[in-house]
């Protein structure tokens, strides 16, 4: 085991894949300045700074990937992706289908997101649900150094466009990463903590808040299972349903805004496919429907915290929801 920052885990993944496949390249605003190791090893043709223009960065990646390259692009902060939506959604996401399968788009588009740096709503906006909603794309948002490495490697090898979100607050956090070739498959959730009473489903750094909430709950004798989705598309429906069927109680947690977020999708899946197993309402703990504030205390209040998650989970036991349902519906 090695101990790497998340930033270095990502860098290592890219370096390994660049060694493995000469079609892998990386570009973006400041990429060659900030990833000097990669620049030194692979040179200025494969590691490039770009002009300040997200649209063409993404467009170049899409066009190059269709012709056999495997570009990784860094779009810096998620809100800047708004300038590349046509390229990502209309081109990368659709042109395979629209051309009857003539092209594929093996590219990775990275961006940072999430609270923690008090940078405000034009740097911090969790947009992952937009891409989950859009056909033809894959979306990952890891939460551990090992997963950042393993998922980045899988994303680069995947033949489809992958949106790769990095929690800015975690960038310089360290974690253990297995030595040697380490791949994590897209589309597989991880059970971070097993439990029998309630399921906390989350991704990104909210997983930590869920783990903290689970510890709080355990003190009260409530055993929470914590699921880290890791991939948001494909979504590991089997893992979600298995846990929900086991516990019958689910809280979904994310920093992204509530309406039409990934939490809504999970709750909807549960409302359809785990209906008979659910013993209590499905709750969502998310940011409120507001842009991310900069001011530190407001930013803290914006993001889901362990206390609120634990309280929500505990509330599912407060009254016997099933009994209530029977009374009301009979």
């Amino acid at each position, binding site marked *: 085991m090695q101990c790497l920052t998340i930033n270095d885990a990502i860098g290592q993944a890219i370096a390994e894949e660049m060694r493995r496949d000469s*079609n892998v*390249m990386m570009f973006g605003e400041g990429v060659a300045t900030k990833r000097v190791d990669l620049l030194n090893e692979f040179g200025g*043709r*494969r590691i*490039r700074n*770009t*002009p300040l*223009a997200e*649209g*063409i960065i*993404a*467009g*170049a*990646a*899409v*066009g*190059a*990937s*269709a*012709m*056999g*390259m495997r*570009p990784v692009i860094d779009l810096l902060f998620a809100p800047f992706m708004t300038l590349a939506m*046509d*390229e990502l959604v*209309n*081109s990368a996401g659709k*042109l*395979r*289908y*629209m*051309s*009857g*399968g*003539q*092209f*594929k*788009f*093996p590219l990775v588009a990275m961006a940072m997101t999430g609270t923690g740096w008090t940078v405000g709503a034009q740097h911090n906006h969790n947009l992952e649900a937009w891409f989950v909603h859009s*056909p*033809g794309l*894959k979306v990952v948002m890891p939460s551990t150094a090992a997963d950042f490495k393993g998922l980045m490697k899988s994303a680069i090898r995947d*033949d*489809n466009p992958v949106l790769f979100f990095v929690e800015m607050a975690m960038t310089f956090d360290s974690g253990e990463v297995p030595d040697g070739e380490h791949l994590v498959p897209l589309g597989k959730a991880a059970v971070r903590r097993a439990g029998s009473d309630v399921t906390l489903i989350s991704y990104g750094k909210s997983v930590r808040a869920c783990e903290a909430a689970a510890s709080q709950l355990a003190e009260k004798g409530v055993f929470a299972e914590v699921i880290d989705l890791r991939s948001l598309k494909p979504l590991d429906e089997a893992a979600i349903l298995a846990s929900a069927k086991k516990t019958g109680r689910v809280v979904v947690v994310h920093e992204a805004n509530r309406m039409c977020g990934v939490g809504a999708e999970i709750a909807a899946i549960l409302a359809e496919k785990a209906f008979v197993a659910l013993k209590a309402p499905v709750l969502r703990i998310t940011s409120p429907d507001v842009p991310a504030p900069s001011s530190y205390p407001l930013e803290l209040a914006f993001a889901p915290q362990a206390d609120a998650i634990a309280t929500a989970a505990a509330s599912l036991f407060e009254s016997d929801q099933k009994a209530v349902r029977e009374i009301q519906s009979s």
Partner: protein
Amino acid sequence: MTEAVEPGALRGMLENMLTIRAYEEKAAAMQAVGQAAGTCTSVGQEAAAVGVVAALGAEDLILTNHRSAGHLLARGADPARIYAEVLGKATGYCKGKSGSLHVSAKELGVVLTSTIVGAELSLAAGVGLASSMQGRNNVVACFFGDGAASEGSFHESLNLAAVWKLPILYVCENNQWQAFVHRRETMPMDHISDWAASHGMPAASVDGNDVEAVYRAAQAGIAHIKTTGQPYFLETWTYRTRGHYEPDDQGYVDPDELAAWRAQDPIDRLQRKLDLDAVEIQVIQKRVAQRIEKAWNEAIAAPYPALADLTSDVYA
């Protein structure tokens, strides 16, 4: 570069232009009687497609847009398969999933057609980048309209191509119209080449209704790209003599302007230049008409995609 293009080659170009014209007029006629969905024709602009494509080699790549039939046909596409695509048939170049607006034909080197105006510019940068990374020594011809040049992607693409020395031949078909808006309403100058020149690349503007002139200008551009490894910009000055999209009554078009440009029809001009006799022309026209008729019938007879194809080709 100054010798005349030999008459055989020009006759081939004439036949290509006639094929495009016949293809599109048939598509429009079939739309008018409810047998086909609407489509964007390039009637009046055929010289740009034919002249530029004639100058390209087999290894070169093409990006086009919503108004693509001319580029496809000039590149040797099977009209039956384009019609099939327009009709949503399984035998279309894109299995019917595209329809008329974004027909790619990778086997012909016509890649990544998008109907998002300006996307062709953005994607071309990537195709050029791949060519450059892969040492292909080819040229990427990107066709787009005067309207597309108003999109930010125009500026971003030209700049990236200049900075990264991408082998792109930008071909702006300035047909004076941007759907239902005249170019004059959308920009302060007449020529897109003025914008392009500010990107530090050679930017030529050519009489787009003179196929020979277009052909030579494209050759010059390609030579520049091959010798310098740098992009080149070519504007073809032309006119869209039919509507934006069938059907279109062109009620918003100045009839005098339209008439003046019709008098400059690129096919008529080449016929006059070649000085073919009436019989020769009739022979070609008949051959073309038969080919188009056959293609249409083939497309009409082709099957629709199976319902299972609704969900195929999404992920690789």
